[in-house]
């Protein structure tokens, strides 16, 4: 066989060997890709199966919550009136009056009274819930439970006998620390009444 033929055979064998090596390596890589895709498909199928009932459940929850909101909004407007209802909502959640009530579109145009600036939430709740509340005692049958112009008069009505004044001659707060004028001696004072009040010693 001539030398040129031998070299050609060697070249062809080398080409085939290279093709076999790279193709086998590619097959191995493709098998790993297939295995990974199978795993991914399993996860995706799980996501689909688990998320299938979500829409129905969430819609049911939203329907029930909508019914609750409709009920509470309607009750609030029925009992407090549209203006005070908007004011109450804005007092509890500042800025919420701009959104208005969901079922009453005209509530967006209502100028919310500043209920929260006159009474605290607790007083407001008492006034709204019971006519026997102190804030409403002056006019149990009257329509207005608050006086936006003279709010201080309404709050003063909480004390028909007059506001209690300051208690005179209260002892001053004791000075504490290592430099305090009255030092605490545990050996003498543990378990027994104090001999002297700090206010008398310090002032």
């Amino acid at each position, binding site marked *: 066989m*001539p030398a*040129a*033929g031998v*070299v*050609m055979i060697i*070249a*062809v064998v*080398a*080409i085939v060997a*290279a*093709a076999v090596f*790279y*193709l086998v*390596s*590619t097959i191995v*890589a*493709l098998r*790993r*890709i297939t295995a*990974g*895709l199978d*795993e*991914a*498909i*399993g*996860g*995706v199928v*799980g*996501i689909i199966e*688990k*998320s299938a*009932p*979500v829409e129905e*459940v*969430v819609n*049911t*929850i939203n329907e*029930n*919550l909508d*019914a*609750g909101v409709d*009920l*509470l909004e309607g*009750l609030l*407007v*029925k*009992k*407090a*009136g549209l203006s*005070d209802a908007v004011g109450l909502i804005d007092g509890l959640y500042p800025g919420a009056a701009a959104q208005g009530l969901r079922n009453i579109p005209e509530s967006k145009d209502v100028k919310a009274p500043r209920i929260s600036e006159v009474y605290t939430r607790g007083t407001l709740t008492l006034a*709204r*819930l019971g*006519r026997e509340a102190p804030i409403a005692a002056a006019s149990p049958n009257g*329509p207005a439970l608050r006086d936006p112009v003279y709010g201080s008069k309404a709050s003063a009505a909480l004390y028909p006998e007059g506001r209690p004044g300051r208690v005179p001659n209260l002892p001053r707060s004791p000075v504490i620390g290592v430099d305090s004028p009255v030092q605490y001696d545990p050996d003498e004072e543990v378990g027994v009444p104090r001999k002297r009040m700090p206010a008398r010693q310090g002032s």
Partner: protein
Amino acid sequence: MTLEWIGDVILLVVVLPVVIYLLHGVLTAANSIVPSVNRIAGAAQRGSADLDAVPLLLHTQEQVIATVGVVADYGGSLDVILDDQQGA
């Protein structure tokens, strides 16, 4: 004879490098896909695990229905107890 040597040179210098280059490119591309597929599989598994709490929505649904029912009961009671706004 000369043509045979020319053919050998072409095989060794041109055909063999081209075959190796092309097949190496294919193998590199296939290998580069494997990590991406593994990351996708991991993300899908984690996403599926995150949805394990979805059945709790059924309990939430029951709780919401019960809560709205209680609110409705309280609302009905308040509607009876409290006076309506005058003019309403």
